[in-house]
Structure formats: structure tokens, C-alpha cells
């Protein structure tokens, strides 16, 4: 096991006008499950491949433990890419299917058998070891594939969108298995996904990337509760955080005919910006009791058990403006008899609001 450090690690593809990964600094703790997430082209896969030795590091360095691996070939880095191969060989036992690569590396037989048995116990495959893999289910095949990586006892597991080619049912169960196994094994793991739900439910910490730049690295809850900038605020959360622009006025930010209260010390950090963006998660709205609040023109109300989801736009917009306006989403706990085309006033819960600079996109609250 080991730590992983990206130190100003940069990758520029030949002919590209900006780096695919730009001065990435990321410290991954020993035994930590780190998820890299972001939209397509954000640099997450490139970062993983730099760590794996598949992409050149044009500047900066990458360390695994105290070893500088920047220029080492992939096989000398003591890492395992999980799921890159899970074809099962029909004439070999499950044990041999898990341990054959060790034989290739001349690991002594007794050691091989011990490692395979340990992995099989972890994976619930112990009673299958002497069987042929003829009738293994999709999930069991996945487990054998994990076993192949586990028996190698690498310092770091790397997983690049490992669930992307699985059907929905297998994806949910494999996700659970990977997270549970990683916790039991305690092997440092770097996991790449474009799916924020996967990232948030699996990772000890999540690194959010965009355009080759690390936006924020934090625990899932910290990302959710205190996103560092507008991008993270909009990317993490489903439905997404409502981001509403307004002008700075005395005591808050003016949205429509309502002044959203913002503390003076926060407004002071706006450095004279005339407009700011406030962020409110859908579950942090409540309907106003006193006619105060942001006026929302309701488009759809969706009842979901005890909650109802309200979808709408800021009130007072023309039909054309509504088409291009940001949608506002609110999850309201109390059942109000809300109806389509009605105007409702919503207030943010105290202390649950996020304020961002429009100029830098950074959080100022």
C-alpha cells in the first residue's frame, strides 16, 4: 500500500492549444478511495493514465509512496488496472483463473495458492475454487476479475470507468462490491467516472476536474455542502443546485422584487462586484409564510411520496424569456396544494445558502 502524489503533473497533447491536465496537485492517502470525476474532456482519464504510465508526463512528477514513477514503464509501477481483462478460461479452475498471472511472474506455488485463497475468501468465491467457470453469472465473473487484481497485491488499484460497459443491474451490484472490497482491503484506489452519483457514493474523497484543472478535492459531503466554485456547485448534486444571479443591494442580493438576505461580511468580499450568484439546493427552499421570498412561476409539480418537486422559472418573465431561463427546482416537504402556472414565493433556509462571485466563479460565503 502507498500514497500517490501528483506534483504539478501536466500533460499536453501534441498540437493541442491547452493542456489536457494542467499542473495537477493531488495527494492521495494510503488506503484512500479517491474518485476523479468531471465531464467528458476534463482530464480525469488522462490523469489516471499518467499515473498508470500510459500517458507521458510533460512537466511535474508523479510519486507512488516515496518512489518517483514519472518515467517508469507501466509494469514497473506496482499498480493494477482492474477489469481490463475478465475473459474466463473454460478449462482452468476458478483458482487458476484468478492466479494464472502470478505463475507467469514465477511466484512460488504455495504463495500463489495462499494469495488466491485469501482473495477468494474476501470475494465469497471459496467454494468455487476447484470448479470450472462454466456457469458463472455476470456478477461472479466480475468477482473473479477483481480477484485477478487482488492476488497481485499491488500498491494501487486503478479503475477507469469500470462499470461503463455493464447493464444497469450489474452496475449497481458491482459498485457496491467494489466499495465494500476496497474498504476491507484498504488498498489505495484511484477510480475514474463521469457519473457524480458513482463518485459521491463510492469515494472517500472526490476530485472534481474541468478543462484539465482540478476544481476541488474534498469528501463527498464537503463538496455538497461547501462547493468551492460555481462549476462544482452546478456539477455535484442531483437535481442540481439552483444558481440565480442577482444584483448586490444593501442587505443582500436582489432577485426580482425580493432581496435575498446576505450577511454584510460576505457582501464585503464581493470586492465591489455589482452582481453575484446565489446558490440554493432544491431541498433548502421552503415556501414563504409571509408573502416574502423569490417569486417562482410554477411549470410542473411532481409528487414523490412525502416530498413534492416543484419546477419553474423566476416570475415575471415573458413566454420567450422563459424558454431560455434557468429552471428553478425546489423539493418541498410540506404538502402545499401547488398547481401549474401559480406563482409561489420561496425562501432559502437560513445558513444553507451559497454565494459566488460572478467575476471569478469562486465561493465567497
Amino acid at each position, binding site marked *: 500500500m502507498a500514497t500517490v502524489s501528483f506534483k504539478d503533473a501536466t500533460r499536453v497533447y501534441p*498540437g493541442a492549444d491547452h493542456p489536457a491536465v494542467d499542473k495537477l496537485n493531488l495527494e492521495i492517502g494510503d488506503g484512500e478511495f479517491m474518485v476523479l470525476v468531471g465531464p467528458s474532456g476534463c482530464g480525469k482519464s488522462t490523469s489516471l493514465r499518467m499515473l498508470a504510465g500510459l500517458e507521458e508526463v510533460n512537466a511535474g512528477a508523479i510519486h507512488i509512496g516515496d518512489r518517483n514513477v514519472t518515467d517508469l514503464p507501466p509494469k514497473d509501477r506496482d499498480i493494477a488496472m482492474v477489469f481490463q481483462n475478465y475473459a474466463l478460461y473454460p478449462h482452468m479452475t476458478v483458482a487458476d483463473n484468478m492466479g494464472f498471472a502470478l505463475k507467469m511472474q514465477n511466484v512460488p506455488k504455495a504463495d500463489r495458492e495462499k494469495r488466491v485463497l485469501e482473495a477468494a475468501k474476501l470475494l465469497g468465491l471459496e467454494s468455487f475454487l476447484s470448479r470450472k467457470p*462454466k456457469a458463472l453469472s455476470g*456478477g461472479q465473473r466480475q468477482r473473479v476479475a477483481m480477484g485477478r487484481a487482488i492476488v497481485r497485491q499491488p500498491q494501487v488499484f486503478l479503475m477507469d470507468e469500470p462499470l461503463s460497459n455493464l447493464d444497469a443491474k450489474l452496475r449497481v451490484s458491482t459498485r457496491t462490491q467494489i466499495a465494500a472490497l476496497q474498504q476491507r482491503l484498504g488498498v489505495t484506489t484511484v477510480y475514474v467516472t463521469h457519473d457524480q452519483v458513482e463518485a459521491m457514493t463510492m469515494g472517500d474523497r472526490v476530485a472534481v476536474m474541468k478543462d484539465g484543472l482540478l476544481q476541488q478535492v474534498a469528501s463527498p459531503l464537503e463538496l455538497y455542502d461547501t462547493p468551492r466554485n460555481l462549476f462544482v456547485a452546478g456539477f455535484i448534486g442531483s437535481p442540481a443546485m439552483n444558481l440565480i444571479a442577482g444584483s448586490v443591494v444593501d442587505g443582500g442580493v436582489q432577485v426580482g422584487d425580493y432581496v435575498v438576505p446576505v450577511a454584510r461580511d460576505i457582501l464585503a468580499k464581493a470586492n465591489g462586484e455589482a452582481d453575484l450568484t446565489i446558490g440554493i439546493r432544491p431541498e433548502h427552499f421552503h415556501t414563504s409564510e409571509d408573502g416574502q421570498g423569490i417569486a417562482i412561476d410554477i411549470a410542473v409539480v411532481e409528487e414523490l411520496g412525502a416530498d413534492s418537486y416543484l419546477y419553474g422559472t423566476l416570475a415575471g418573465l415573458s413566454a420567450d424569456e422563459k424558454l431560455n431561463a434557468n429552471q428553478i427546482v425546489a423539493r418541498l416537504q410540506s404538502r402545499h396544494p401547488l398547481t401549474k402556472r401559480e406563482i409561489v414565493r420561496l425562501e432559502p433556509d437560513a445558513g444553507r445558502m451559497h454565494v459566488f462571485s460572478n467575476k471569478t466563479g469562486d465561493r465567497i460565503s
Partner: protein
Amino acid sequence: MPRFLAAQPDARLLPLPWHTPLAEWPHEHLVALPRGISRHVVRFIQVGDEVYAAKEVIETAAVHEYRMLTDLHRLGTPAVEPTGVVTNRVSSEGEPLDSILLTRHLQFSLPYRSLFSSGVRRETVSRLLDAMVVLLARLHLIGFLWGDVSLSNILFRRDAGEFAAYLVDAETGELHDRLSDGQRLHDLEIAMVNLFGEFSDLEAGRMLDESLDPLGLVQQIEARYRDLWCELTGLERFAGSELYRIESRVRRLNELGFDVAELDIHTSPTGDTISIQPKVVDAGHHSRRLLRLTGLDTEENQARRLLNDLDTYRARTNQGHVEESVLAHQWLTNAFEPVVTAIPPELAGKREPAQIFHEVLDYRWYQSQRENREVPLTEAVHGYVRDVLSVLPDEVISHESFSPLGEQRQLANPLDPSQGFVDEDEMPEDPWESEAFAPGTEVLPDFLDIEALRRRAQG
């Protein structure tokens, strides 16, 4: 209604039972051909005289692979030809089904499992590995990172005395402008691990000759690949007085079957040292030349053999002065075509024409040696048909050559070798399977459940 994504659709495919999971298709549409191991359901579909390989896989993967194979075809790389993707499949019960990728079955192709048998010669295995290494290097030259190099993902065709390898599976493939050394070495490492697994599997199934050692075989792959890559792309420095080495390098590459489209040549300021490095090399040196001269489209080593015969023909007919294209036309009419037309139609499915011509030349050479006389081609072809061709298995579709080798064991499913033999035990209970994960594990939701995250964080 299923949807077909195809550039040149085959209308005969439309009425097939796309609403049925591929594993349950009625046998009337299927043909049992030998093939490698696959993690997906793969079947061969026969419509008329055409055979298609069908692979059931999720839509994004099917479309990705279709596009990859299309790109490989456009770049002239040996790969199976994609026919289409069938999406929007729904079962009779209304359940959605995975998409199906269709590729045209490669005629005269031989999967590795049908080439291995007890007593397969070491040289034959070496030639198969060489073909695989050439394929891997060719793919790497065009920037293709395979990601799942294995014998199961390759088909072989006879190529004179050698083999030519074709890529069958591009599911994990990626096309880059160029590959880094790390990417190439990673692909090579995957090849070695996968092939070690495949050889070990053949060994466990008693299909690998005892003289063959899986570890020795994969070490051979590594060494051959490194040598070939070095020859194809390596920088070579020599003294200014050794200019002939430029020509030697080009000849060596031609000999390996590659043309040099761009060669970087640098001379030191004093002119004492010269360095050369091939920048663009294209495979198919001999097959392109033969195609240009005769219109015959053959594998590389077949072309080499036929071109040699063309040279022999020039000497034999004493036409040293005749322009090459004129001579090639004469050779085609007087040597190649008489041999091909002498093959009885019922035996034409045994080998491709260029392969037959090569084998007839071999047959004639041995007969000439034996009888100490120059045997005419017409005589040799009749002897070849009688002694060799008539007893060979049919290779247009090579299922007749296939049986579970080594011993008389029956495949659990003749349509799918991945499922092993029939005589194996049933599987034990799996405590995880009923829940799909270890008992007691907290199931991670398929949506963002922040309250669950908060509970977990609080322990």
C-alpha cells in the same frame, strides 16, 4: 421495433428474431463455427451463403466497436468488417435487450483454438505468434491502442507458409494520433498476460502439445515485438562513409513486408555521422506491388511468393528486357489462371486461389526434387489436387476442421466454447449471488442520497 445502424445493410437480416436474447436463438439461423473465448454472448448467423458474427453487448459498447472497426477498415488494417448494429431490441415480454454488433465472417479464417491440437508443431505456433506480433505492431503504428490483445480476439488466415492475423474484437480499442511508449508496452503486457492465460487454458484442456511451454511462448512474443518495433521505428546512426546502410534499412523493412513512406535522414554538421529513422511505414509492401501488377488481392506472404514466381517466369521464358506490367499480364494468363481454373469447383472451398497457387508451387518443387526433373505446372496441379487438396478440410467456413481436440470431449454448448465441456459438475451455492453482494453489505443507491451519506459520515 429494432433499429439497424448500417452503411450497407443486408435485407436478409431484417426478419431475424431480434426480439429473442441471442443465447436463445433457434438453431436454424445459427452455424457452429470454431471461435475463441468471449465474455459476451457471440453466435454465428447464417443468411443465404453469408455468415455474420453477432455479439450481444450494451448499446454504447456496440456502437463504439462498430465505429472502431469502421475506422480500422478505412485505415486498411486487417480487421473484421463491421456490418451494423441492431439497437432498440425488446423481448416478447417487453423487456429491453442489449444491442447486437454484426460483423461479416472472415472467409478462410481459422481461430486459434482450431489450429491447436496435440502434435501442433512448435514452428506453426511460432508463425501464429509472429503474425499476431505483426498485427499488434501495425495497429500501434496507426495509433490504435487495443486494450484487450488476445488470441481469442484474432482470426488467422493462411498466408503462403505463414499466417496473417486479423483483429476481431475492438470493444476496448481507442484510436490516438500516436501511441506513447507506455501505451504500447501496456498493450504488450496485456497481450502477454492474456496469451499466457489462453495457452494455460489449452494446456489444462490437454490441447497444447507437451513440448510447448506457455511461459516460453509469451517471452517469445515480447522479444519479437520489441525487435520488430525497433526495426520499424528505431533510430540508426552510422558513419558518413556507410551510406549503403540507408538502402539496407529500406530493404530490411521491405523484407518484413513494410514500405517506407517517410524516412528522416540527419547528417551531422561535419558530415561524419548520419542518422536515419523511418517516420511513416506502411504494411503490405508485396501485396500492394502484386495488386498493382496483376490485380490480385492477396495476403503479404502469398504476394511475396507469387512475385518470386513472376521473377522465375521471366527467367524461364527468357524475357529479361520485357516491361514488368506486360510480363505480369503474361504470367497471370499462362501460369496463375491455368492453375486456378484446373481446380474442380467442388474443391474450391478448401483454400483461397493464391494459397492454392502457393501450395501447388511447393508441391511441384518437392516433386521435382524427388523425381530429379522439372515438373510442368499443369502436371503438378493435377498431382496436388489428387494428393493434397482432395483430402483437406473445407476452410471457406472451417467448422469441419473443428472438434474439441486432444480427447473426445463434448462442448457443453457447441455454439459457445466459453462454456467448457459437458462433464463438469454443477456449481455450488453462492452466498453473494442471491443478494448480489456480500451478506451484510450496505447497498449503495443508484441515486444521490445525501441523507445516507450524512448517516455514513456520522458512523
